[in-house]
């Protein structure tokens, strides 16, 4: 599904990612953990195609294509989905309008017809149950006036609707109380499948109690310094990230 090879990326001349290597197969859930400033969000932004990052070395192969050569919208149309850490507000644009435009953009790429209003609404309603969202959210402006939890649920709703092949969840647990965390996690778990890969980026082990990953990687100073299974996260919880920084550089899985 996804193969990241020796990826180096800089922002304003400062190198943030310093040789990331990671292979994600279909159906796998990978958690990427690490202290603040390790490069977690940079990695998700680079994968999603945000402007402002310079790739200095390495490559990313997604479904046999050079991912880095594609525009952000082309990646999205091919099934790369980023659940944002800070979902953006778009005043005046109703949630349902964005959802429909997004779904139709993906369907158009897949050579499918646009869904008509009735089929679309039926589909959205079924997906909304997954994240326990009220229908009124469809008619509110995108993320405007949403609470932190509502914004994150909205992200998972979009994911459920777009059915991506590769979902990157960027700190989806941040700012969530325990109830919201449960709802969001249940939503994500329901979307796990043999065809879908998930990369979860998080600072805390807490999320991994709810969405149990197949692999855990520790990111530090722009490199993956340790990889393991879910037990690694528990270890981290006990020891904190300080020991990570003591590891010699260049160690990777």
């Amino acid at each position, binding site marked *: 599904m996804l193969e990241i090879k020796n990826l180096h990326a800089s922002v304003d001349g400062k190198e943030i990612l310093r040789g990331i290597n990671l292979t994600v197969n279909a159906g796998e859930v990978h958690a990427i953990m690490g202290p603040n400033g390790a490069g977690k969000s940079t990695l998700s932004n680079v994968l999603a195609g*945000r402007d402002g990052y310079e790739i200095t070395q390495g490559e990313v192969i997604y479904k046999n294509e050079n991912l880095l050569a594609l525009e952000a919208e082309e990646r999205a149309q091919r099934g790369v989905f980023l659940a944002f850490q800070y979902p953006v507000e778009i005043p005046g*644009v109703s949630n349902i309008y*964005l959802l429909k435009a997004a779904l139709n953009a993906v369907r158009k790429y897949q050579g499918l017809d646009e869904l008509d209003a009735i089929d679309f609404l039926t589909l959205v309603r079924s997906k909304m149950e997954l994240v326990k969202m009220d229908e009124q959210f469809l008619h509110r402006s995108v993320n405007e006036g949403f609470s932190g939890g509502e914004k994150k649920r909205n992200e998972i709703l979009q994911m459920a609707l777009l059915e991506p092949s590769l979902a990157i969840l960027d700190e989806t647990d941040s700012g969530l109380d325990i109830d919201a965390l449960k709802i969001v996690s249940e939503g994500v778990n329901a979307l796990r499948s043999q065809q879908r890969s998930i990369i979860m980026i998080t600072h805390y082990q807490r999320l991994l109690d709810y969405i149990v990953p197949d692999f855990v990687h520790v990111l530090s100073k722009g490199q993956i310094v340790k990889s393991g299974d879910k037990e690694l996260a528990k270890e981290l919880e006990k020891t904190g990230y300080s020991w990570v920084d003591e590891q010699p550089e260049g160690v990777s899985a």
Partner: protein
Amino acid sequence: MAEQKQQIEEFVPQEYAAGFITDIEADSLPAGLSEDIVRQISQIKGEPEFLLEWRLQAYRHWLTLETPEWAHVHYPEINYQDISYYSAPKKKTDGPKSLDEVDPELLRTYEKLGVPLDERARLAGVAVDAVFDSVSVANTFQDKLAEQGILFMPFSKAVHEHPELIKQYLGSVVPYKDNYYAALNSAVFSDGSFVYIPKGVRCPMELSTYFRINAANTGQFERTLIIADDDSYVSYLEGCTAPMRDENQLHAAVVELVAMDRAQIKYSTVQNWYPGDENGKGGIYNFVTKRAACRGESSKVSWTQVETGSAITWKYPSVVLQGDNSVGEFYSVAVTNNMQQADTGTKMIHLGKNTSSTIISKGVSAGRSQNAYRGLVRVGPNADNARNYTECDSLLMGDKSAAHTFPYIEVKNPTAKVEHEASTSKISEDQLFYCKQRGLDLEDAVSMIVNGFCKQVIRELPMEFAVEAQNLLGLSLEGSVG
């Protein structure tokens, strides 16, 4: 970031779909303006004496005026002697009585513009008056409307058939002395639409006028007069386009609305005059005076405008709230791109008691354009409990465009309540990335964000106009992302 920046600055020339020229023979007066020209226009139209007299007074007054220069717009001085003040497609007969007699070339022109004049071809109930250069070339559904006593016809026809109404109302809202361009229009106006809705009648369909400038070096000076008698209602739509030409062309219209007791007029405009090319060459100078009088008690007038065209737009659709409990509304979207300039807004003049007004203005500036909101809220000494709410929002795209806000508030009554809110924002990289990450391309993302910004105004438009306006917003901003 660098790539985004490049997209911001790169201009993909936008296709102005209405930019074609119709090859049709025309009768035009030679360029130049004089008392003789004014007389000739009046004579061609076979006007009664009172109207000629009025035109001449206006012309003589115009001669005493100086070109106004207070607006935030810049353009070379206009030589009024270089303009032809009258151009009409050559007619085979004395004015078409039915569509069969209208030159097929003209019908094709309007079809190309998406305004089919064939009544059978129209799904929605919209009656159209098509004004081509200086004359009305087709007017649909007249008979059906006449059954309810509604008059909807070219201005020049109304002059002959209902001179008493013209005499009573012409210039009663915008006197020829009002301003430079109103005086010019009053002297040389050629055609336009006339609407009268009788007492207690709710007009069963949207009335619309489609203005088209075709001839080169011609100015369009139309005059629209709408009278809604007691307890009546009318919704009126106005659309405008012009061919792409390198020279600037002048459009100086006057629109007068009169709402009597409890009458309501809803006036919607989608203005898409040719805006000039990306270097500011060509385009229409749109210097228009639009004003409504809420003459009766509890009357209401709403102006809704979506302005995407013209090299320069200079207009302030206003409402004079004379009747007690009358209501004035102004909803505006003004989009400027490239070298376009817009100085537009409204005036709400509160004279009656318990009058209220709402102003919602959305300015979108892209390219190197200048976009100014200018609005006046005046509350007279007798206007007890007057209320006004004004909201002016500006959206900037790129870093070479500018937005300006000039609000004027004059309150002479202590019970008045006037609120003004203003904001300026930019389309953010975050918003664009968010949309792109959901699969939308850049143009669709911009169009969606801009339409969201303008939603409060768009939703005031009649359904089919709203769709056109939404598409137009996207088109006007194509390639100007930022």
